[in-house]
């Protein structure tokens, strides 16, 4: 537990921008380094494809993803173990409910992206709010501020102590199965990480010379926190957000797999598709392999880009 906290704190300290190193803008420099990193390019290409598919999926899909045409036409008999495989029309064959599987994969990308992005946003917003308040209070708020910080951080530590999937499952069980539930549950899991990260990063900045300068010039403490410290502390949070997108997609798939996702599985979602494929693994393993591969590749894309971003923003590695 404490090592997890230490790690996050250390990460934020390391990657927070040091004010005395300004030459080229931090972001220009980072972008330049990203372009030279093959892992970053791979990640970015994967993500670009993923986002295009997610946005254009419903237009690209050759068939209606909710239409059980295979059952209507009598070619899919999953009750008798007959699910036709890929054909010229149906590139990945049908699913167990007679729906075109390729169309479902395409449309499923949107749900997956939606869950990933919204749950990360939930985590980022709430986490940044808590971490920002705690960081600002601890750095500039004197004794009262430190108390606020202690209280907020202990709450965050409690959340952090719970295994993330367990926490997500508990939240999902409380709220009942739905797509919103999955977003909230996965979002809540990343709250403590973001909170810890931003707080640590802000604390590191609070001791900086420019803060001292602003204070001695009589700038209000709120203004210092919002316009001086916060922007300089955001880098590690952005890195973390990219990495969180990867875990969010995997966690959302896990929750859907456990039956806590969208109860109307007519709307495709990769995790639900994976769960639905279980009884038919012996007949048509593709029904599980495709969504699983899609989840893995997407998560890999986010991870590659996130790691590259972390390296690019790491002041220790700057030339």
């Amino acid at each position, binding site marked *: 537990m404490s090592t997890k906290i230490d790690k996050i704190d250390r990460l934020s300290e390391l990657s927070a921008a040091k004010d005395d190193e300004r030459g080229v803008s931090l972001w220009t420099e980072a972008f330049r380094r990203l372009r030279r990193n093959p892992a970053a390019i791979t990640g970015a290409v994967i993500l670009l494809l993923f986002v295009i598919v997610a946005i254009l999926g419903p237009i690209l899909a050759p068939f209606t993803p909710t239409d059980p045409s295979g059952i209507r036409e009598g070619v899919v008999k999953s009750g008798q*173990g007959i699910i036709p495989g890929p054909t010229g029309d149906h590139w990945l064959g049908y699913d167990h409910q007679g729906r075109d599987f390729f169309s479902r994969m395409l449309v499923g990308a949107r749900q997956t992206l939606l869950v990933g992005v919204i749950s990360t946003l939930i985590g980022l917003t709430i986490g940044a709010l808590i971490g920002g308040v705690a960081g600002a209070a601890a750095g500039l708020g004197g004794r009262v501020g430190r108390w606020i910080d202690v209280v907020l951080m202990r709450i965050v530590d409690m959340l952090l102590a719970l295994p993330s999937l367990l926490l997500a499952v508990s939240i999902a069980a409380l709220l009942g199965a739905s797509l919103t539930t999955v977003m909230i549950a996965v979002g809540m899991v990343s709250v403590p990480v973001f909170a810890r990260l931003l707080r640590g990063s802000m604390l590191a900045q609070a001791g900086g010379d420019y803060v001292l300068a602003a204070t001695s010039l009589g700038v209000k403490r709120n203004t210092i926190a919002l316009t001086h410290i916060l922007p300089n502390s955001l880098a590690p949070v952005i890195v973390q957000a990219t990495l969180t997108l990867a875990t969010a997609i995997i966690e959302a798939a896990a929750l859907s797999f456990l039956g806590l996702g969208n109860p109307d599985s007519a709307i495709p979602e990769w995790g639900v598709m994976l769960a639905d494929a279980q009884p038919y693994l012996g007949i048509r393993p593709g029904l599980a392999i495709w969504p699983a591969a899609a989840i893995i590749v997407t998560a890999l894309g986010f991870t590659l880009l996130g790691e590259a971003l972390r390296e690019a923003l790491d002041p220790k590695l700057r030339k």
Partner: protein
Amino acid sequence: MRASTRKAAIAVTAIAALAAAGCAESDRDDSGGSSTKDTLVFGVAGDPKVLDPSFASDGESLRVARQVFETLVRPEEGGTKPTPGLAESWQPDAAGTTWSFKLRTGVKFHDGTDFNAEAVCANFNRWFNSAGLMQSPDVTPYWQDVMGGFAKNEDPELPPSLFKSCTAKDPTTVDLAFTRVSSKIPSALMLPSFAIHSPQALQQYDASNVTGTADDIKYPAYAMQHPTGTGPFKFKSWDLANKSLTIERNEEYWGDKAKLKTIVFRTISDENARKQALRSGDIQGYDLVGPADVEPLKSEGFNMLTRPAFNVLYLAINQKGNPALAKLEVRQAIAHALNRQALVDSKLPPGAKVATQFMPDTVEGWNPQVKTYDYNVEEAKRLLAAAGASNLTLRFHYPTEVTRPYMPNPKDIFELLSNDLKAVGITVEGIPLKWSPDYLNATTSGSNHDLHLLGWTGDYGDAYNFIGTFFDRPKDEWGYTNKPLFDQFQDADTTADNAQRVEKYKALNAAVMEFLPGVPISHSPPAIVFGKDVTGVKPSPLTDERYSTAEFK
């Protein structure tokens, strides 16, 4: 006293479990190396609730009870017709209210006591005189289903008892008197819940001492550890910690002795895990085979048995749920909207049929001329418009994490049906609930439900067991009151002459399908599978498989 016994039992089983875990490897080697196979391990989906079938209605309890106990009348092997069991013959009197049973001689209970007329009466009197918690519908479900009430009804809502008295005329003749003529006699006596127990064991292990509260029922020692019947197998042990129950051959059985010495029922709740256990040889058979697994397992050489389809899956419509559902046109529209043939072809195992009425055609009283509702989207839309319900929103409950013999994949079936309903302009709000108790409570009580999936597997071969169970009285599941229909049921039930009664059943089926309280969907044949080298078990429509005839090739 009881608490300490239980604690000791838990301790012992815990130690046994540890020991078993410790020497699991060597055990496996032993069984693999033995040359004579005399133990069959059978995978079941759940633990039995209780071993005294008087208190049971779940399939797993009854499966065990059917091997250990016997009834006066029993279903023919692989069929539903009553044939001699512990009674060799039976005869009603002229009025049809008193039935005289001639009992088999030379039958002994597992505890060595004699089976005779006295023992039969002791059993019937025990059920009839149930008091306190034993009158709870959860404790004596089948008695209340068949007989209604008890000697002294404690709940004023309970109907008067159909059973009146039992007289032991001589050691081999017993007279059962009833308060009125009923279609249920003698068929209902085939139910394992009417199996005959050893009166001495009942007394010794305090069998009627059901304690606890209605929400937390505690069954007596007899029902948990000492079931004593006359069947081809004796109960040996039930290890709840290891989820296994063992029965052993009854060497003093009056009929053909069991071919295998030991049968072990091992609980494996996950369907895929059961399949893998069969493939790996850990078990030599299991029940509730997923329809998609039937063909693969068959082609691998496993001995797949398909039971005749003695069940019905239906879409229930609650007329109190949404006022529009009380309109006949709306219910007809729903029936026309459903593409049941496509559902049966695609989702159910081979041999499944679309249902035209609420009972399978193997039961007497099935009517070939009921009103049918074919798949017709235009007709459905027209009917909805005519009823002024074009903009209908319906809640549709479906169960999760469950497989029923009549409903192998509820979620898939729900999806297909709701797609059909959406196609005619009905907005469907799907509500998934856990099967027990949430789903069953939500759909069979109160009026806060519109549509739901449910079904029934017949207990014995009489039409009343199907249509009477659903429609002969006001029920929250359907939310209607139809006095003429209820009277028609009452009339059929009390008709003594079988041929006349069958005609009345046919008329009832026609009346029900005119009134259309719900939409019958399908009859589907559930499968049970045995290992490649296991033979001798005959599939039963009532799930009354007899493991005594099982043997290894």
